[in-house]
């Protein structure tokens, strides 16, 4: 994959998302509701976009419908405990026709506290666009406590019902012990 292809992709992407160009090519400009998406350039062979949570579904739909990113590869989070907002939710998409990957990064805040009751680690779900998002969002919810708004099935997947905390957060000690869960008969949790 040559760099020019990426530049073209980047330009037409930002154009189609109607992102105003930065005034004087100053890429360090922070994201704002007027400019909710910015490109972080090509990093190790992947085009990286950073966006505000509210732009996520629009961008993902554009990627799928207009740019042929038909495979939802992965969603996970990265915890930066000393930073606000604390979490990066990282999405990877792949286009099986153009053989290109793209990464979206969304910054979300830590759970609500008394000072900011509205702030929660929340993003919209992508299950409306990709079926495969369902399981991967469940895992991310398990591990980081990110809430995927609209995902009807956020039951634990790798963990179990009754697990306390989110183990991949940096403040979760590796040796943490969990309370004993009483025996439960198999649950017919056919929620779908």
């Amino acid at each position, binding site marked *: 994959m040559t760099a020019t292809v990426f530049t073209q992709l980047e330009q037409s992407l930002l154009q189609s998302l109607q992102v105003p160009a930065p005034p004087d090519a100053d890429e360090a400009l922070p994201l704002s509701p007027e400019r909710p998406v910015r490109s972080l350039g090509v*990093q*190790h062979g992947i085009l990286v976009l950073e966006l505000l949570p509210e732009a996520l579904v629009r961008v993902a739909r554009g990627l799928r419908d207009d740019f042929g990113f038909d*495979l939802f590869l*992965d969603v*996970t989070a990265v915890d930066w405990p000393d930073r606000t907002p604390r979490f990066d939710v990282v999405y990877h998409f792949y286009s099986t026709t153009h053989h290109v*990957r793209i990464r979206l990064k969304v910054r979300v805040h830590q759970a609500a506290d008394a000072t900011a009751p509205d702030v929660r680690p929340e993003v919209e779900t992508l299950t409306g666009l990709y079926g495969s998002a369902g399981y991967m969002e469940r895992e991310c919810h398990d591990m980081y406590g990110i809430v995927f708004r609209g995902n009807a099935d956020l039951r634990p997947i790798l963990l179990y019902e009754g697990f306390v905390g989110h183990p*991949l957060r940096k403040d979760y000690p*590796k040796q943490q012990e969990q309370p004993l869960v009483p025996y439960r008969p198999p649950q017919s*949790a*056919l929620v779908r």
Partner: protein
Amino acid sequence: MVVNIGPSHPATHGTVQIIAELDGEKVLRTDVHCGYLHRGFEKECEDHTWHNLIPYVDRLNYCSALINNFAYCDGVERLMGIEITPRTKYLRTLLAEYSRLADHLTCVAASLMELGAMTAFLYLVTVRDAMYEHLAALTGARVTYSYGRIGGLAADVPEGWFKRLEEILRDYELYLERVHGLVDRNRIFIDRMRNVGTLSTAEALHWGFTGPILRSTGVPRDLRKDTPYLAYAELDFDVPVGILGDNYDRYYVRMREMDESVYMIRQLMDMIPDGPINVDDRRCVFPEKQLVYGEIESLINHFKLVMEGPVVPAGDVYVGHEAANGELGFYIVSNGEGVPHKVHVRSPSFVHMGGAHRMLDGYQLADIVTTFGSINMIGGECDR
């Protein structure tokens, strides 16, 4: 009626729970639940140096551990900006194909045995076992090899290894011919596999299927061709595809892929150049033992690499390799220390579990066994 299958059941191909709503013997809805082998792989990774993770990544897909090794090392090498030596590049390609062969043999053998085909199972596992012994001669371990290294490999190929490889490939052809003869046009086999667990291409993509399952629906999507890595760009090979996307096609795609792997291995045996195995980079490659005992600089180098780990420049990288089951991705984040900030695995099995219900719903209860076998869910990488 709702029945519970698993998590530990002789007919489930791994530790997984399937809760199925039935109408008579027909499956109406299923809820596939995994996670019974979760052991905190990603949490553990954040507590060990970049080198010390290599034995862990072996235990993801333990049927083809070398592919995991090489994908992980590739990710770290990209962050460090390391170009591996030509010999290592070809050797890794050869071993990745050899592992794919072993993985597909295991998968096909197990799913045939679940249908009662004991002879075919024994034929396939005979070949696989010869491979395991052969890989043990190279790596010192039978299943979890820990053979990849950041910037190279653990050791060079021993004397006579390629000669034995050629013998095993000939055995492979002998036994596979017998399996084809026993199974391909067998009435029982076709009745159980044809038109069962059917997927369309659009559906497969929607649910994130990759690898043999996606190819069985008729599209040649293969990362080895589409985004060539290692030495795949220089190799001649076909991407076998299916027609209907059913269990029979998945069986056949795997069988044909094995033939392609053998063809690639034969090409690679002629291509492997002489030369060093490890790059000459003191940031990640251990100095020779002789020097560690003989001079202080190498001793310090060794000590720093063991205690602090190799310093990987800050940044994040996603590498996707075509593993035996589909796209195996490593999303690696470094903050410039000897220990990763995060290692995330995009494992094909886990994603496939999310869409498995599409292949189970609407068929018979007994078809769960064959369909699940053809997905080839590997608990180690699914649950991490």
